[in-house]
């Protein structure tokens, strides 16, 4: 999957905005939104939040976890544990990027947040590579990968699954007879 498509999925996550306009309830195909009243917080999908923000029609409220102290804890925990710790959002990376790109004026300490999230990401990707290597080395048949996010899986996933496919075929070489029909034309 393309990272832009993972981002597309992330854009469906609900965030809170404070609109500066009034609008009745909207009945979208994917669910109802609103009503919108100036100054009253309302939940909308991120794609709409960004659009409204770009048109200066709202202020964005950062998700609760997008906070230096909380993210420091998350980063430290991630560095301490060998396994993948649960993330505050399955789209933590995408939300951080999108919110900091489009609503940086609504998010305090944006630069620190960016660095903390990136550090956490890097730690997790390093772990992912470590587990990929041991999976290959042990020639394992199954791995449980709770708490990995779609974006994380996507950056290394294609490489890993393709390597495992090759390995599988090389292993079938050891069992002649089973798949030993060479192709004749």
């Amino acid at each position, binding site marked *: 999957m*393309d*990272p*832009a*498509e993972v*981002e*597309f999925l992330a854009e469906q996550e609900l965030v809170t905005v404070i609109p500066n306009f009034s609008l009745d309830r909207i009945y979208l195909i994917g669910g109802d939104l609103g009503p919108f009243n100036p100054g009253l917080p309302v939940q909308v999908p991120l794609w709409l939040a960004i659009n409204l923000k770009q048109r200066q029609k709202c202020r964005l409220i950062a998700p609760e976890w997008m906070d230096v102290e909380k993210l420091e804890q998350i980063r430290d925990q991630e560095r301490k544990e060998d396994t993948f710790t649960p993330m505050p959002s399955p789209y933590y990376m995408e939300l951080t*990027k999108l919110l900091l*790109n489009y609503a940086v004026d609504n998010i305090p300490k944006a630069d620190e947040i960016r660095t903390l999230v990136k550090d956490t990401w890097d730690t997790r*990707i390093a772990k992912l*590579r470590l587990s*990929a*290597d041991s999976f*290959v*080395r042990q*020639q394992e048949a199954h791995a449980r990968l709770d708490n990995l996010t779609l*974006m994380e899986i*996507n*950056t*290394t*996933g*294609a*490489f*890993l699954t*393709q*390597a495992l496919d*090759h*390995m599988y*075929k*090389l*292993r*079938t*070489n*050891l069992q*002649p007879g089973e*798949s*030993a*029909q*060479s*192709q004749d*034309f």
Partner: protein
Amino acid sequence: MGEAYVPVEAGLGFEESFLSLGDILMSQERLPCRAEIALPRLAAVLGKAGPEPLAAVPEGTKLEIPLWLAKGLYDNKRRILSVELPKIYRESWRTVFSADANVIDLHKLGPFYYGFGSQLLNFDSPENVEIAQTILQTFIGRFRRIMDSSQNTYNEDTSVLVARLDELERVLFQVGQKGLNDFQSWERGQAQITATDLVQKYRKIKFIDLDS
């Protein structure tokens, strides 16, 4: 996203992929053989042409023929042809591989180390099991380095990194690079969902049609 041309992947193991350019190139690699019987009228075809174009290849002649031809002539019931193992699949080299597969320049020795090695198993060598084992372990042993180099190098000249990789490893390296590059350009905000090349071209064609 919208690649108009998706190349056919190489097969691996006993099966070649008929429509894969990689496999066609691989099966063109030469294999040392010995004619176990006289091969009538094949001298010219097998590159042993003397003054007589339709001469036979005498029994015992050493030949270097492409893999696809060797496969076609080989028959485990009638001994027409015996196949010699190329040196990198022989025991002495297998020992080198098992010591440290990472130091070996597989491109220079290959460049189709895995694919060609798997195809060799079609010739019923008594060393088949050891060859298959070595190929598999070589892949496992080199995996980490390929993963790390393909996932750590952004916007750099990668020719040095892939220089020593076998063709299969190069394809894998590119997959890893694509994962990294796609992510990095997304992170920098350069990746957006756009219409594919095909759609864009199609729109242009339509436009021209309307004009004329």
